[in-house]
């Protein structure tokens, strides 16, 4: 089976710091594909083109709520609905690694692919007038001039809590496949049959299991010396019958 590169995002450890957003913007606005336009960056209604965004949701009803920080970028679907609708062939899915890309020199800016994406992860560049989207930092992950440990998407490099994993989900032994398999990785909007390559790891409750012998101190809980046990907790102990 061919390669399918993807991100696995662990919602259990994402703290919503937006470091992946700024790192993504920094890398992708500086590349040879050109800048990612912004308007009013310091004005009243700042807006711009981003390939990755972190959103925040509140689950439940006060006081039993949980805050979910939710990074959202192109999911590099295995059956991407945005690709066949493109009239020029500018949108395509690479056979060799499954990355969905836009050829910015062929894009006519008709926005049909954005209509055909249920996740809203394609954004038109309002100044270059072409569709932009996450490239999985394709200009970085194969760059032989970088140390091998740096050949990862910029967002993955930036994440301070290691909430973003990167790898080949078709390789059963990759870090991402293992995470999906062992930590309940799931896909977004499975109802549309797009088979997103990116997966999310669910929030997990951290529970402390306490056993009685952890609450009560027992000097010799297994009674290996066959001596009589200590008095029961309610009974007088040595401290009650003597003084120091």
């Amino acid at each position: 089976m061919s390669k399918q590169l993807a991100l696995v995002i662990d919602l259990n450890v994402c703290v919503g710091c937006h470091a992946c957003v700024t790192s993504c913007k920094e890398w992708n606005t500086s590349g040879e594909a050109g800048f990612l336009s912004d308007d009013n960056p310091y004005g009243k209604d700042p807006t711009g083109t981003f390939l990755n965004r972190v959103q925040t949701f509140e689950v439940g009803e006060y006081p039993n709520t949980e805050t979910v920080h939710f990074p959202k970028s192109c999911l590099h679907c295995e059956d991407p609905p945005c690709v066949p609708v493109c009239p020029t062939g500018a949108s395509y899915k690479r056979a060799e690694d499954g990355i969905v890309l836009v050829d910015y020199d062929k894009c006519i800016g008709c926005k049909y692919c954005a209509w055909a994406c249920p996740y809203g992860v394609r954004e038109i560049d309002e100044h270059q007038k072409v569709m932009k989207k996450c490239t999985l930092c394709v200009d970085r992950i194969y760059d032989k001039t970088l140390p091998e440990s740096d050949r990862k998407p910029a967002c993955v490099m930036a994440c301070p809590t290691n909430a973003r994993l990167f790898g080949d989900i078709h390789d059963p032994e990759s870090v991402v496949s293992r995470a999906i398999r062992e930590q309940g990785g799931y896909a977004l909007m499975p109802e549309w049959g797009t088979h997103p390559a990116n997966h999310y790891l669910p929030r997990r409750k951290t529970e402390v299991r306490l056993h009685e012998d952890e609450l009560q101190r027992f000097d010799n809980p297994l009674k290996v010396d066959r001596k009589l046990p200590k008095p029961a907790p309610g009974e007088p102990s040595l401290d009650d019958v003597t003084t120091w």
Partner: protein
Amino acid sequence: MRPAWSVILLTTLLGAGQGLFLALFALEQLDAASVPPAFAAGGAGVALTLLAGGLAASFFHLGRPERAWRSAAMWRTSWLSREVIALPAFMGLLALWGAGHALGASRHWLAVTGWAAVAACVALYVCTAMIYACVKFLQEWHSPLTVVNYLVLGSASGLTLAAAYAAMAAEPLAGIFALAALAATVLGLVTRGAALARNAHLRHKSTLATAIGVKHPRIAQISQGAMGGSFNTREFFHGRSDAAVRTVRRAFLALAFLLPLALLALGFWLRVPSLYVAAFAAQFAGLLAERWYFFAEARHPQNLYYQAVA
């Protein structure tokens, strides 16, 4: 979805132009002697003008119109690409058919170019409609009714236009076109009404729970990652109140169907063909509103991710 005027004009102008040709060609097939060649050639000219206007409007939808020539490339998969091929093909065949009338070509030539133009015309209706109907998660559009409505509403407006054109250029023909326009408009009211009824009871498959993958009935967005809006908030929301959208629906039902029906019937009954011109003006304005509503009504699942700014 945010209705784009370029696409509204494209689809309505194309529909009327195609319908006008179908009306002229149908009458010619039924009774060739009754259609003066100059009338048919002029009608082809009117239809071509409308199609050219629609084509021009479509360029305003593109970010990089200078690259529009590339858009015919993916005809194997993209209905938009197929439309890009069908439109000039139809315009070319229509021009040949119109020129045949203007230059007094043989009946054989008119039949060959005419029937080929009919095929291209129907293909163009289907391509235009399938651009919308093929997007499965835009559930308001993902229905055979979308194709039916583009076909029927385009033909109805074309027939009304044929009646209006005949009222000015060949008055004896106006009555038959008006009767056909009446029938097509009634049919359009039925099929468009069926689409409205279907969409009124639509259950959207995507919810916030499937959008972020958290199994809980109560999920509220706190922030969408940007304060000043983004492409996602501009392209996929029409930004009008529900009341405004309902007003547009009432307006298009009155303007595209009820008023033209009344004007066509009155014009036919009182033998005042000039009323057909008013009927077409009303119907075209109504179809502009209808197309606006068509876009505004569609709820894109990506909107689930853009419910609250901060």
